[in-house]
């Protein structure tokens, strides 16, 4: 029976450096490589009865399965990434057999060779900025000159007018805080992006996703030459120390395989 092929990623051809032994996504079949000239596909076989389209769809509707296997996919890529330059494939890239894998690889091979050359010796680092919203609001209320003078004006009004004007002022503080979040974060982003060969601003996640008290106000990713990673991180650390007391939390994770900056088509 024809076997399905799960594709993890593409690495440069290497005669002397075998991939470490790892079990595939089904926890049974081994992960191995198929050579295609200058490049190699890192794959594992899958039983068609269990992983054909209908079965796979049922599996992917089970979020527990998705989370566990997505973790496996990433873990395998991280192991490979420590040794090789790798083009990481999206989770669950599955081919119906060796022929269809071969057709796809042959079609995209020139691009893949080019891409491997571009991402070699580079690392992805992700930065997220969180902020303590109430602290930030306090700071804005204290430091913003427009708000300070508004406040003085309000003190002179009748109690009824004061109530209304204070509500307006609260809204103004809210707006100014949002502006401050954006301008602070994008300034920092510009500073960090200088170290990178490429960067991308990602969507912020809401609190339901992060499970944190602080608001996420920035989410971005940087492609760094290995030689600039130290400088980049030194700058991150400096910014962390400098801004923590004002309610800004700057967090970085990495190195990641080139998930964001590997593009074939």
């Amino acid at each position: 029976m024809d076997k399905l092929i799960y594709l993890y990623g593409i690495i440069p051809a290497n005669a002397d450096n075998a991939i470490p032994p790892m079990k595939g996504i089904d926890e049974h079949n081994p992960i191995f490589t198929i050579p295609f000239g200058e490049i190699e596909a890192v794959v594992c076989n899958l039983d068609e009865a269990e992983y054909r389209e209908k079965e796979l769809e049922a599996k992917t509707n089970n979020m527990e399965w998705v989370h566990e296997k997505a973790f496996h996919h990433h873990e395998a890529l991280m192991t490979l990434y420590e040794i090789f330059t790798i083009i990481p494939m999206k989770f669950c890239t599955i081919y119906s057999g060796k022929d269809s894998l071969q057709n796809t690889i042959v079609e995209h091979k020139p691009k893949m060779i080019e891409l491997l050359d571009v991402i070699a010796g580079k690392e992805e680092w992700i930065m997220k900025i969180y902020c303590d919203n109430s602290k930030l609001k306090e700071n804005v209320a204290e430091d913003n000159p427009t708000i300070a003078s508004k406040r003085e004006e309000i003190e002179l009004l009748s109690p009824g007018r004061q109530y209304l004007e204070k509500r307006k002022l609260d809204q103004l503080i809210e707006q100014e805080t949002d502006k401050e979040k954006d301008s602070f974060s994008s300034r920092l982003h510009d500073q960090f992006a200088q170290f990178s060969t490429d960067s991308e601003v990602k969507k912020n996640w809401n609190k339901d996703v992060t499970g944190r008290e602080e608001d996420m106000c920035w989410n971005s990713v940087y492609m760094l030459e290995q030689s600039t990673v130290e400088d980049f991180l030194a700058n991150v650390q400096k910014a962390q120390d400098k801004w923590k007391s004002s309610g800004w939390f700057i967090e970085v994770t990495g190195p990641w395989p080139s998930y964001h900056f590997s593009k074939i088509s």
Partner: protein
Amino acid sequence: MSQRKEFENKDVALIDILDVVLDKGVAIKGDLILSIAGIDLVYLDLRVLISSVETLIESNQETAEQLSSKRFDYEKEELDRVINESG
């Protein structure tokens, strides 16, 4: 290499992995078409997240520990808290 040691592979959350693996990575369409591509994290159900964190810790004890099981525990507590507050 002091800075690198300070940051390398630390504080990586499950959600970070899901984000890059489900949403990013090279997509060359295989023969099997998957509905999972381009899943929007914002719409992931909270309870699903929690159950998955538990599954991950149980079934992947060793690797999860390497990655930082403390972090997962922390997230789970946080998520529990969020649900209790909103429920």
